C-alpha cells in the first residue's frame, strides 16, 4: 500500500500512548502492541520515537520487535489471509490449501502479493479445530475447506 502511514496524527497518537504507559513496569510490550495498532506495523521511525521516550536503546527495541512474530516491520496488505497449520488442520490437509492460495495471489507464506493487497500467513492453531482445515481472511473465517473451495473464496477479494 502506498499510503503514508507515518503521519503527524499517528505520531501524536503514539505520543499519547507512551505518555499513558510510561510509568508502568515493563511498558515496552504494551506500547509496541498499541503502536502496531496505530501504524499497522512498527517501522524504524516508530521504534526510534519509542526508544527516545522510554530511554531504551533502539537496538534493544529492534531486538524485541523482530523476536515476536506478531510485530512486523512492514505494512500488511489490505487483506490478511491466515491459513491455520495447527496440528488438527495439518492432518486434515491444510498444506495443499496454503499452496493453492499462494498460487492464486502470487504470494509466499509470510509475504505480500505483488500489488500489496494480500498478506499470506501460515499461522499456528487458531483453536477452531472443529472446523479444520480453517483459513481466516481478516475477520472472516472459512472452515472445513477443500482445495477446490479456494478459487471461489478468493474471487470475493480479488
Amino acid at each position, binding site marked *: 500500500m502506498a499510503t503514508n502511514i507515518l503521519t503527524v496524527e499517528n505520531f501524536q497518537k503514539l505520543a499519547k500512548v507512551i505518555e499513558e504507559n510510561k510509568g508502568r513496569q515493563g*511498558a515496552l510490550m504494551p506500547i509496541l502492541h498499541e503502536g502496531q495498532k496505530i501504524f499497522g506495523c512498527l517501522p524504524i521511525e516508530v521504534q526510534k520515537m519509542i526508544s527516545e521516550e522510554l530511554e531504551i536503546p533502539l537496538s534493544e527495541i529492534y*531486538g524485541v520487535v523482530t*523476536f515476536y*512474530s*506478531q510485530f512486523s516491520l512492514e505494512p500488511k496488505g489490505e487483506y490478511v489471509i491466515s491459513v491455520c497449520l495447527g496440528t488438527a488442520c495439518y492432518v486434515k490437509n491444510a498444506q495443499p490449501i496454503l499452496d493453492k492460495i499462494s498460487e492464486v495471489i502470487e504470494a509466499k507464506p509470510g509475504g505480500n502479493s505483488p500489488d500489496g493487497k494480500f498478506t499470506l500467513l501460515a499461522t499456528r492453531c487458531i483453536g*477452531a479445530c472443529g472446523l479444520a482445515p480453517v483459513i481466516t481472511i481478516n475477520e472472516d473465517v472459512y472452515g472445513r475447506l477443500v482445495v477446490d473451495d479456494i478459487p471461489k473464496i478468493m474471487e470475493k477479494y480479488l
Partner: protein
Amino acid sequence: MELFRSHVLVCAGTGCTSSASLKIIEEFEKQLEENNLEKEVKIVQTGCFGLCEAGPVVIVYPEGAFYSHIKVEDVKRITEEHLLKGRVVTDLLYKDAVIENQVRDIDEVDFYKKQKRIALRNCGLINPEDIEEYIAFDGYKALAKVLTEMKPEEVIEIIKESKLRGRGGGGFPAGLKWEFAAKAEGDEKYVACNADEGDPGAFMDRSVLEGDPHVIVEAMTIAGYAIGANKGYVYIRAEYPIAVKRLQLAIDDAKRMGLLGEKIFNTGFDFDLEIRLGAGAFVCGEETALINSIEGKRGMPRPRPPFPANKGIWNKPTLLNNVETYANIPQIILNGPEWFKSIGTETSKGTKVFALGGKINNTGLVEIPMGTTLREVIYEIGGGIPGGKEFKAVQTGGPSGGCIPAEHIDTPIDYDNLIELGSMMGSGGMIVMDEDNCMVDIARFFLDFTVDESCGKCPPCRIGTKRMLEILDKITEGNGTMEDIDNLERLAKNIKAASLCGLGQTAPNPVLSTLQYFREEYEAHVLEHRCPAGACKALSNYYILETCKGCGICMKACPVEAISGERKQVHVIDLDVCIKCGECMAKCPFDAIVRR
C-alpha cells in the same frame, strides 16, 4: 429479579464464534422480539461447550435440548417451534441426542457422559460476562472462605494435600510450588498466570478464559493471599481476543464489586491483576521466557536455578501456574483435598482437559478423570475414527509430546504413564491419526514447528533441531539413508540432554516416539522409497483403480493432461507427466483414484 421460563444458551467460544454464533444471538434477539417472547425467554451467551465439531451450538433449558450446527436461518424455526409452541425441533438436534424420538438431556449424550467437569464446570453454563452468574454457582465463595477463615499456610497445606499437579505440561506438584514461593524472601512477590497456550491443537485454556474468566481472578487472588503477593499478571496470547476481552471485563467487574483491589472482604488483604499480551512466540509458554516477556524483553528463557519462585518477575519471588491449574483451585478449597484426591490415579489426581482433534468424529474439549483410558476417550467420547478408517496413533503433548500407537490404546491416562510411553501430558492437545497419516511426516511437521519457534539462545536447540528437520526432509523426499536414521536418533538424544529450556529438551520427542513405535515406516521411506501411508508427496503416486467408470471427469480436471483413456473404459495416469496435484482424486465421483 426477572424470572424466565426458558433459557437459550448460545456458545460464544472462539470455535463457534468463527462459525457465526454472534449472528445467531442477534437473530434470536430479533425473533424473540417479533414473537413477544423477550420477557419469557432469556438468551445467554456462554463459553465453550466443548463440542466444537458440532458448532455453532445452542442449548435450550429447561429441556436441555442440544442443537448443533445451527445456522442463522434455523433460529426462526427454533423460536417458532420450540420456544413458542414447545415442540423440540428434532432434526436440528445433535445427532447423538435423538433416540427413538426421545429427546435426551445434554448430560446423557455420549460425548458428555464419561466426562467429569471441574475446570470446565461453568463453561457452557454461565454467562461469562456476568459476574453475578459466576457468584450464583458458588463463585468467590472459596476466596471468602480463604480470606476470612484460613491462614496462608493452611491454604498451601490444602493445595499440597490435594496432590494437584501443574496442568501446563511438566506436572510439578502445585502445592510445593506455592510453598516455595511463600517461603522465598522478598519485599514484593507476584502471582502470574500462564495463558500463553501455544501448542498447536490445544485450546482448553482459552475456553476457560472465555467461558469462566472469574475462576482465574478468584484463584489468583487466593494464590496471592497464600504466598503473600499483592499483584498478579496474566500473560495471554494476543491471538485470543475474546479471552482477553472477557478476562478484562471480569477483572473490572471484580474490582467494582470489591473482590479485587483494597481490603478485600474487609480484611487487610489487597490484590490487583493486570493482563499482559504475548506477541506470537511459542517459547513464551516456558516460564522464564514468559517472565522476560512480561518485563518487556525478548522472550528467551533464563537458566534455572534460580527458579521463578525465588527470582521471577523483576527478580522478585513469583508463583507461576497455568490457567487450568488455577481453574481447579476454588473447587479444591470448597470441596476439600479429600474430594479432589478421590478422583484420578495414584500419582495423578483430579481431571485433565484435552482438546480432541484430528481424525475423530467428535472434535472438541473433553474433561476426564485421570486414569481414563485412551480407548475410552477416542472411541466412547470421541466417537471413533470417521470414514471407517483404522486408528493408527494418538499424539499428545503437542510439539513436546509423542505419538502413542494402537497397541497402547488401553493405557490409563496420567502424567507418568504418558511419559513412560515416550509422550507427555503437555497442555492437553490430543490429535488422533488414522492410516492415512504418515508418522515421518508428522514428526517432520512438529520439527518444522520447533525450528520456527526456537528462540535461538542455546545451540543444541537452535542448530540441532534445524539439522533434524533437514534429515527428516531428506527422508520424506525419498533420499534418506539408514545412517540418517541413526544420526537422527543420536541428535535427538543429545538435544534432549543439552538444551536450556523445556522447549529444546522436549523438541525431539515427536521423532523419538515415532522412531520407537513406527521405525518400519522410516525404513520403508529409506529402503523401499515408499510412504506406507501415501502422505509423502515425493514418495507416492496417484493410481486409478479398476472401479473407474470412465466418465472422463478426472481427465478434464488434470491440469497437465496426464490422464488418458477411452470413454467408459478404465483411465490411466501417466506417472512421468503427473505433478501429483491431487485434483483428479478430489474430483472423482466414484472414489476410484487412490494415492499410495
